[in-house]
Every structure is written in structure tokens, then in C-alpha cells.
């Protein structure tokens, strides 16, 4: 960040003298603390009664001092107007300014930096009040001479790089026209593309004014694909690049027609100034999909070479001797089947096929070729045609003396039968694809079986001609180059009678390889007019053509240069596209040559100057806001922060560690416990309630309870308490898994849980708890339940409220000697039991008065007895009274 800011200088350094008063501010702040806030407060009398030693002023906090001094510091800095990357104004000239801008193909990658530079130059021109004239190297329109700055700005804003080269002589001509109107020697700034030019151009510029050249050095020059040739393995790519040091590594990419990279290869350029040929090896499948080659990282069209072979037709001809036969035994059927998806196929007699344009010719049945056809065929092969023949019975029967010069090899009469009835040779497999041929790298199929073949007559260079052989080394496919073309012989038929090769997938792959071997028929007519289909725009992407683009007249060949009417791109129709690439028109990529004496040269200004004063003001404002907020509430921050810190640092370890003091205290005396609800008032009430009940128990029974304790289900061990009173409130959290397990264990081993909804009707939390705890089926407390007679004889179980529905575990299901482990109700017993310090009840009971409170206490006594003695009182103690009540 600081590097980005670069050098900071001050426009008004004298303002920094104000920094001297900072210590003064410090002292002032220290002596006069901020004004106290005024608060109206009713209980001010109580405050007045407090001792007066707190009244003295506390010191201004240190951080307030620092904060305010910082505010002052930033204000002073803002006054000094700091500026990063200050560019000193070149206010030496008031002569007219002429801007010459290269906006050809080579600056497409570097255009934004040029636009920035242009803005800086125009800013300076504005300061110096210079007239400005702009000439672009590739543009038909220029600004009308010496327009206003505003017009120049808008012109420059619309200026775009174009994907073709400019004509420098035109610039000089335009410059001369401009100079005619001038009396002064102009200052000429040339934003060069950094490529080598005619020395005449530079000297021409220099003669016409004070020349300043701005360019971005050799490193920024683009690499160019000058030419691409198709080879059997892939492509030969000729790359042009400037002599950069260290030698650059380029990333050659193969794109498909969606501009997706389907293959890429890294290459080091050693000496590419005059062109270096790189070999790209690419699998055939990808090769057939490739639509363009590209040097990664550049957007200029010179770094992209469009391939149009993909669209070039490679028509296939099959020589037809008799009526078309769709029978599976027809050899042509298999060729047709395997090539149909990849090329147009014509079936006709040889004479007709020779008249048409074909790239491959297949002869499956040893047509007798007439002499005049033979000559034409040879000529066709020499021009690049591929003639493929398949063996047949007819061929095998032919006399050996008759030499066939349309075949790569001569053959012996008769057939070689493998694995036949009278042969001891077994059927054999295809063994190897020779590396001379295009089939090399094809996977050798293991299931191809050859039963019959014709044998090649041994020859000195037979092995060179062989593309595929059998396991015993006998040639199966032989080929010979003739001129630009090939003649190829398959020593088996194209039908599956001699071998099952035509049935295998390999056959189709072989046919496709043969297809890609052919260069394609040059079917494009010599003087066709090709209309633009997709052309490059200023961002280097292929777009639909604009109005200026005109048809390409191919007949004139290379004489057409890419320019505004014929920009590089794809021409023709969608089915037959012709690529018009920029690369072939670029001779070399060389850096700017010698500069004439007197012309100044420089690079682009990397950074623009930034005024930092607003930032300083902003920081000061933010600090002032912080100061304002903090002085209002700074102690509240600490109030908020302290619990957060506590949660972070203190409670976490305590969470896992049980509180041993508490456990010891709980274990040493019998105590009732209450679940911590988080609501202070409820907790206090329940504690007071349990203590109130404890007092009653002490007074009336033999049970002596120590004061009740809080029980935190997340931390404490429940097994130390005979009963846990759980007041269920609305805003309680659900229990964690460990707490649930603890409570379940507690209930299973004889603990007792009193769940009191405190008057609420079916709170949502209760059902959730009930789901997670292992509680048996519930039933209302029946009239004969032990609870009604464990100490007092009672019928109702009122608390603060008197609702009837009090639920316990059904006795039938209970495994613990028919003693329930829970009691659920909503009578808010604890509130009825609760007393304050002067033993006055805290809550009124509803609706019944003190008798109801007494009943509540009696229920409490019965409950504790029930918990402590189980169903002991379920037997005969009260039998006489019960008998009496029953009227017996």
C-alpha cells in the first residue's frame, strides 16, 4: 500500500509548522478535561449524602489525549495538502501541442496505460493553456486542427486501437496539413507502439517539431504468430517476438470454435526476432476440433491465428463399379459407415469422381482403370490426393507380371490363408502400427483377426512403406508417397470376409487419420468474393462485422493488407469459412530503432498524482466520530466488553470443570435444588420457596434441610440432590446433550424432578424437554396416590394457583417400585412457599387466602416425604383414617 502511494510531497509545506502547536494542544487537553454531561436525576438527595471524595475531577484519559492529538495532527496534514507522485508541471512551453498516437494492432494490450498518459498530458496542456491537435495512426478522422481541450478529450475518449497496422506516411501527410496553419514550431508527443519503423518517419517527425517519444519498452512488445502449418503430428507454428532478455516463455494454446482452450504447451523462445518455428504435438481428436492457435496473455489478433481447415471440405470418393449395394458384404459399406460423420462421400465411377473435387479416393473392388483415367489419377495423386485400395479376390488372381504403379507395393499371386483347414498357420492378429505412418499411436487392437491376405512382394524399401504389419511381420497396410499425395494399399478387403478389421473401432479411427492426412482439396474458387463473417474488434474478440468491412477478394492473394475495410477475421459463409489472419503480414517484431539526436524519449508515468488531503480530512472526521461516540459511552463499552471477555476466557474452562466446593457443600447436607433458569427473579423466588418449605419441614417433621442450592444442568452433578425444582419459563434455553444425559441418569437412578410451569398453559419448552428426557407415561395424580397421604391427608395440590391437573408417572409403568420420578404441574408452588427475610409471604395465593397457602405447604411436606420415603406411606399408616373416610 505504501509502495503504491509512492512519494508523498506537500503542496503547502509551510502549513506543517502548525505541528509545533501539538504539544500545546496536549497540555491544554490535559489541564481542561471535557465538560461533564448533565443528567437530571430524582434521587440526587441520596447522591448528595454520599461522601464527597469522589467528586474531584478525574484526569483526562490518556487515550482521549492521544485521539484528540491525532485529530489535530491529521487536520494539520490536510492543510499542508499532501500529494502522492507529484508530477512537476512542465510549464516550459506555450507552443502548440501535437499528439501522435499509435493505435494499431500492437497496442491493443497496452491501451489503458496510453489513455491514462493522454489524460495526464491533456491535464498539463490545460494548465499551460496549450492548443492541442491529435493524430491517430490508424484512424481516418482527426480532430479538426487545434480544437478546444474539451473536444480533444472527447476525441481521445472515443479513440480505440484497431487490429491492423497503420500507415505512417499518412501521418506525416496529416502533420504537414496541420503545420500549414501554424506559425510556431510545435511540440510533438508521439505515443509510440515501440515497434521499429522507417527511420524516415522518426526523422520526419523530428524535422517538424520538438519530438518527445513515449513508449513502454521492449518488454511490453507482443509476440506474434506469423504462420501455422498443419503436420501429421499437429502444427508447426512460426512465432515472432522481440529479443527480450531473459528469453520469454510463451504459452501456446489451441482453441476450439468456442474459444475454449483445448490444449496448451509452454515454449521457450530463443531467437524469435525473425521467426522461430515451434512444433505443437496434439492428439488427432483435438486437432480436428482446433479452430485457432493463440499465445496466452495477449488480446491482439496478431497473437491469434485462426485455422480454417476445419471448415475446408475433404470430400471422399468411392469408386463405384456396379449398382449401389447396401448389402453388408459390400466393402464400400464399411468405408461409408466410418467416414459418413466426418466428410461428404460421393460414390460414382472413376471418370466422374476425377472430374469432381475429392480429397480421398477409395477403390474397394479393383476397378480396371482405363489408361486415360490412370494418367488423370496419377496427376490427382501428385497434386495431393490420397488413393486407397483394398485387396480383393480379383487382385489376388491377377498375373504377377503385370506391374501396377498405382499400388505402393507389388504383390504375389494367390492368397495367404491363415488358420484354414489345410494350413498349419494359425489365424493371426494385427501386431504393430509402424511409426512411419499416421496410424502410429493408435492403440493396437487385440481382437482383430486376419484370416486371409495378399502378400507383398519383397522389396528393398518394403519396410519403409509398411504402415501396419501382422504378428509375423507381414505387411498389412502399405503406402507410398507420390508427389504431394499418397497411394495406400490395404492387404485385406474392406468387408469382413478376410478379416474382422472393418468391424473393429480401429477401422474408423484409421479412416479418420487418413482423412486428416489429406490437405484438403483446394476447392475455393480463385476469384470468389468472400463476405466478412466474424472480425476482430478493438478488444481482440471476434464479433459480427461492422459496416465498413467489405468483401475479401481472394484472387488477389496476399496483396490484400488487413485494414479498416478488410479487418482480420473469418470470411465466407458459415459452412465454408476462410481465415484472414494478421500474423502473416507482420515481418518482424523489433524494438524501436535509433532515435535522432535532440528527440527526448521516456516511458509512461506509472502513477497518477493523488491529492491526499481529502483522505486526511476523512481520517480526522472518523477519529472525531470515534471520540464523540466513545466519550458518550466509553464505560458502557467496558460494560459490554467485560462479559464478552469473561465468556471467552473464564467461563469456558469453568464449563468443563465441575465446581468441587459446591459439590462438597451439596454432598455434606441434604438439600433441595432448583434449576437455574437465567431469570434472576424466578431463581430467587424458587430458592426462597424451597427455603420456606425447608423451614416448615423442620418445624413439623423430622426432615431437616439445608438451604436450597442452584443447580446448573450444564455444570453440576444432579445426583447430590433428592429433588430438583424446575421452574419452566418462556425464555429458557434447551438443554445440551450432556445435560440431558445427566438428567436422564438422575431420573433413572431415583432422582426426582418437579416441573412447574408457573401458571403457564403448556409452554413449548415443556414438550421439548419431555421429548428429550426419559419420562414414562403420565397420568393425573389419582385420589389413592401416595402423595395424598405421605404425611398429611390432602386431596388438592394447590400452590399459588389451584389448578387440578397435576401429573405424575403412571404407576403401572414405573420400574422404580411404582414411585414416580417426575411431577408436572402449573400451580407455581415455589411462589406460594416463598417468604421474604421477615418471613412474610412474597406472593398472594389465588384465589384462596392463607388456607390455600397452608395447603400448599402441606403439599410440599407430602412431596418431600414422598421423595424421601417412596411409597412407604402407601401402606397401612393411615388405614383407620382412610377407612373412616370411605365410610366403613
Amino acid at each position, binding site marked *: 500500500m505504501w509502495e503504491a502511494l509512492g512519494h508523498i510531497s506537500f503542496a503547502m509545506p509551510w502549513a506543517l509548522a502548525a505541528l509545533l502547536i501539538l504539544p500545546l494542544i496536549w497540555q491544554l487537553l490535559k489541564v481542561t478535561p471535557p465538560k461533564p454531561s448533565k443528567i437530571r436525576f430524582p434521587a440526587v438527595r*441520596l447522591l448528595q449524602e454520599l461522601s464527597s471524595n469522589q467528586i474531584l475531577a478525574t484526569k483526562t484519559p490518556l487515550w482521549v489525549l492521544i485521539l484528540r492529538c491525532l485529530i489535530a495532527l491529521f487536520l494539520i496534514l490536510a492543510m499542508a495538502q499532501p500529494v502522492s507522485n507529484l508530477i512537476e508541471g512542465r510549464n516550459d512551453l506555450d507552443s502548440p501541442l501535437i499528439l501522435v498516437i499509435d493505435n494499431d494492432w500492437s497496442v491493443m494490450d497496452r491501451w489503458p496505460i496510453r489513455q491514462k498518459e493522454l489524460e495526464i498530458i491533456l491535464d498539463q496542456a490545460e494548465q499551460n493553456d496549450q492548443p492541442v491537435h491529435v493524430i491517430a495512426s490508424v484512424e481516418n478522422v482527426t480532430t479538426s486542427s487545434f480544437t478546444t481541450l474539451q473536444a480533444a478529450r472527447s476525441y481521445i475518449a472515443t479513440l480505440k486501437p484497431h487490429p491492423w497496422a497503420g500507415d505512417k506516411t499518412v501521418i506525416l501527410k496529416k502533420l504537414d496539413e496541420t503545420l500549414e496553419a501554424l506559425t510556431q514550431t510545435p511540440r510533438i508527443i508521439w505515443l509510440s507502439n515501440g515497434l521499429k519503423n522507417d527511420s524516415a518517419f522518426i526523422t520526419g517527425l523530428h524535422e517538424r517539431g520538438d519530438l518527445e517519444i513515449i513508449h513502454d519498452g521492449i518488454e511490453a512488445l507482443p509476440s506474434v504468430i506469423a504462420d501455422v502449418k498443419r503436420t501429421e503430428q499437429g502444427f508447426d507454428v512460426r512465432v515472432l517476438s522481440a529479443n527480450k532478455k531473459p528469453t520469454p516463455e510463451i504459452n501456446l494454446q489451441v482453441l476450439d470454435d468456442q474459444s475454449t482452450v483445448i490444449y496448451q504447451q509452454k515454449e521457450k523462445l530463443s531467437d524469435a526476432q525473425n521467426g522461430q518455428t515451434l512444433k505443437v504435438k496434439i492428439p488427432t481428436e483435438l486437432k480436428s476440433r482446433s479452430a485457432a492457435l493463440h499465445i496466452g496473455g495477449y488480446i491482439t489478433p496478431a497473437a491469434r491465428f485462426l485455422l480454417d481447415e476445419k471448415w475446408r471440405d475433404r470430400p471422399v470418393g468411392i469408386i463405384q463399379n456396379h449398382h449401389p449395394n447396401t448389402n453388408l458384404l459390400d466393402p464400400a459399406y464399411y468405408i461409408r459407415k466410418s467416414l459418413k460423420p466426418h466428410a461428404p462421400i460421393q460414390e460414382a465411377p472413376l471418370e466422374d469422381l476425377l472430374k469432381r473435387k475429392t480429397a480421398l479416393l477409395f477403390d474397394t473392388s479393383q476397378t480396371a482403370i482405363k489408361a486415360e483415367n490412370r494418367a488423370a489419377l496419377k496427376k490427382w495423386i501428385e497434386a495431393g490426393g490420397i488413393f486407397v485400395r483394398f485387396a480383393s479376390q480379383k487382385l489376388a488372381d491377377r498375373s504377377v507380371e503385370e506391374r501396377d504403379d498405382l499400388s505402393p507395393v507389388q504383390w504375389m499371386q494367390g492368397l495367404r490363408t491363415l488358420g484354414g483347414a489345410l494350413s498349419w498357420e494359425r489365424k493371426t492378429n494385427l501386431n504393430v502400427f509402424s511409426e512411419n505412418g499416421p496410424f502410429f499411436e493408435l492403440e493396437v487392437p487385440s481382437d482383430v483377426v486376419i484370416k486371409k491376405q495378399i502378400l507383398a512382394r519383397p522389396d528393398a524399401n518394403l519396410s519403409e512403406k509398411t504402415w501396419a504389419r501382422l504378428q509375423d511381420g507381414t505387411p498389412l497396410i502399405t503406402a507410398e508417397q507420390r508427389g504431394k499425395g499418397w497411394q495406400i494399399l490395404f492387404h485385406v478387403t474392406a468387408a469382413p470376409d478376410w478379416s474382422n478389421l472393418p468391424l473393429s473401432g480401429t477401422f474408423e479411427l484409421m479412416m479418420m487419420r487418413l482423412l486428416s492426412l489429406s490437405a484438403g482439396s483446394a476447392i475455393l474458387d480463385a476469384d470468389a468474393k468472400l463476405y466478412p463473417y466474424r472480425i476482430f474488434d478493438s478488444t481482440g474478440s471476434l464479433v459480427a462485422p461492422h459496416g465498413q468491412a467489405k468483401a475479401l477478394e481472394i484472387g488477389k492473394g496476399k496483396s490484400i493488407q488487413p485494414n479498416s475495410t478488410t479487418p482480420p477475421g473469418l470470411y465466407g459463409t458459415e459452412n465454408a469459412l476462410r481465415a484472414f489472419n494478421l500474423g502473416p503480414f507482420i515481418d518482424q517484431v523489433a524494438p524501436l530503432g535509433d532515435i535522432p539526436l535532440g528527440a527526448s524519449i521516456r516511458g509512461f508515468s506509472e502513477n497518477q498524482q493523488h491529492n491526499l488531503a481529502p483522505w486526511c480530512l476523512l481520517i480526522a472526521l472518523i477519529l472525531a466520530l470515534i471520540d464523540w461516540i466513545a466519550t458518550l459511552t466509553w464505560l458502557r463499552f467496558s460494560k459490554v466488553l467485560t462479559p464478552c471477555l469473561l465468556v471467552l476466557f473464564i467461563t469456558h474452562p469453568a464449563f468443563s470443570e465441575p465446581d468441587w466446593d459446591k459439590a462438597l457443600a451439596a454432598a455434606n447436607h441434604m438439600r433441595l435444588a432448583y434449576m437455574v433458569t437465567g431469570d434472576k427473579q424466578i431463581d430467587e423466588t424458587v430458592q426462597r420457596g424451597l427455603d420456606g418449605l425447608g423451614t416448615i419441614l423442620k418445624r413439623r417433621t423430622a426432615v431437616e434441610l439445608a438451604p436450597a442450592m442452584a443447580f446448573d444442568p450444564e455444570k453440576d452433578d444432579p445426583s447430590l440432590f433428592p429433588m430438583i425444582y424446575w421452574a419452566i419459563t418462556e425464555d429458557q434455553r434447551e438443554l445440551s446433550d450432556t445435560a440431558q444425559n445427566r438428567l436422564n441418569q438422575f431420573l433413572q437412578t431415583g432422582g426426582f424432578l418437579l416441573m412447574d410451569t408457573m401458571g403457564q398453559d403448556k409452554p413449548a419448552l415443556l414438550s421439548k424437554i419431555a421429548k428429550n428426557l426419559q419420562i414414562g407415561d403420565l397420568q393425573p395424580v389419582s385420589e389413592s396416590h401416595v402423595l395424598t397421604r405421605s404425611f398429611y391427608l390432602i386431596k388438592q395440590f394447590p400452590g399459588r394457583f389451584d389448578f387440578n391437573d397435576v401429573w405424575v408417572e403412571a404407576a403401572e409403568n414405573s420400574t422404580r417400585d411404582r414411585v414416580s420420578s417426575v411431577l408436572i404441574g402449573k400451580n407455581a408452588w415455589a411462589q406460594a412457599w416463598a417468604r421474604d427475610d421477615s418471613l412474610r409471604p412474597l406472593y*398472594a395465593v389465588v384465589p384462596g387466602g392463607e388456607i390455600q397457602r397452608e395447603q400448599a405447604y402441606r403439599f410440599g411436606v407430602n412431596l418431600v416425604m414422598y421423595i424421601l420415603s417412596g411409597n412407604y406411606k402407601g401402606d397401612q399408616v393411615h388405614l383407620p383414617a382412610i377407612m373412616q373416610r370411605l365410610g366403613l
Partner: protein
Amino acid sequence: MSSQNTIHLAEEAASNLPPLLVEADRVAATVAQGVHGRRKTGQGDSFWQFRPYHVGESTRRIDWRQSAKTQHHFVREYEWEIAQTVWLWCDTSASMHYSENRTRPQKVHRAQILTLGLASLLVRGGEQIALLGDPNPAGGGRAALHRLASILDKKRDEESYLSLPAHEHLPRHTELVLIGDFLSPLDEIEEALKRYSRRHVRGHILQVLDPAEETLPFDGRVQFEGLENEGSIYFGNVQAVREDYRARLNARRNALNQLTHSLGWSFHRHTTDHPAGSALLALFQSITQGGMR
């Protein structure tokens, strides 16, 4: 706020409670009749019991319908019913017009709600209510409640520094409910209470405070100003005196508690962040059950 609205709020607070039944045990028979059964026969509207007709009684007292069912003559007796007058007083002085947090009601608002809620309960229970310092005689029914509400409404807008009830001549053995913040000097409060106590008036005091007055939640340098011209006081760091203040407030409250106990009165506290119902319940309890006496 209109008086109608205040009544509505007050009744809402009181709606969860059963009709207030005041035990008028020590009250002389001079008071007007109400709907509260004295659990003995007397004058009243509700049926108490049938008893056999004794010779010498007026025959007009015979319940002929009941007598026709049997061989004997029966007299219908009614439950003896009396009503009690409860005098209410609500502090509306300047110190009550305070709320530290805007979301909470002012103390005076809460105090009036409680006064009216209590009045509403009492009226529903058939008691007579009267406002201390109001020249109108005690009355019952909705009309008395509405009059009370309109007077309270008027009083709230008056600027007053009177934070203790002025001395009034009350009948003996009446119930008096005082609702306010009781932040005046303790000796003044004591004097005011003792004046009533000498007349055997039984009182209930409810201290209504804002939570800020309980906890003193301020920080830093603060100049505190009183609302009733008590002057002001400045603290350099309020946090340091917070604990002292709380202790002071508790001491004051304990002193008040002691004072009321010694007079045989009841003392309750309430902060405005708690629902009004709880305070009303406490008052209700002490009025119906006579506190801890």
C-alpha cells in the same frame, strides 16, 4: 393520555386478579353496606340460610315458597354485608416525572396506573374509594373510578414539588394507600406517616422507582441535577460511587421498611421495568390479609 385510556390500562393490569375482598374486621358498623359477606347474618343481598320461624317474629319475614315445601315455616336470612373506604394517594411531584430510558414509562405514569388499578379492583369488590386531598366524599362504582382518573390526569400536568401527602382528617380505621418514590428526607416522611398513624389509619406504602435509580447506570464525569430544586452534585467518575449509592438506597429503603413496620403499616417496592401486576398483587395481598400483623 386521556383518562379513558388510563383506566383501560389500569384495568388491564388488574384484570388477572380476583375481585378484591377487604376484610373489614376492625371497622365499625358505621360504614356503608357493601357486597362483602361478614359470614354472619345481617343486612345484605345474598342468601345466607333458612332457619325455622320463631314465634314472635314478624310474619313478613317468612319465606313462603320454602315453607310451602315442608311442614314448618322458614325464615330466609341474608348475609351481613359491609363496605370499607380506602383512601388513595399518588405522588405527582416533579421527581416522579422521570424515566431514564424512553422505552420505559415515567414513574408517575406507573404510579397512576397502579393507583387506578387498585381503585378498579376495590370498586369491583364493592369498596368505597376516595382520593386523599380531594374534597369529594368517598364513593363506589364506575363513576368514582372515572372521577379518580380525571383528577389524576389533571394532577399529572400540574407542576408540583409536594412529594408527601398533606395532612387530612380521615375517619379512624380506614385504609390508606400511598404510592410514590419516597425520596424526600426521612424525617419528613416519618412525620407525615405518624400523623396518620395516630388516627389508627392503616397504611400501605408502595415505593415506585426507575431502574436507573436502583442501579445508577451512568459513567464518567456527570453533573447530576435534581428535579425538585434540591440542587446539583458533580462526580468525576460515577462508576466509583455506584456501590456506595446502592448501599445508601438500600439503607434508606430499610429505614422506610422499619418505620412502616413500627407503625404497623406495610411497605412494598416496585421498579418500572417490572410489570405493574406484581406490585398490584403485593398491595392486594397486604390490603386483604392485613400483612404480617
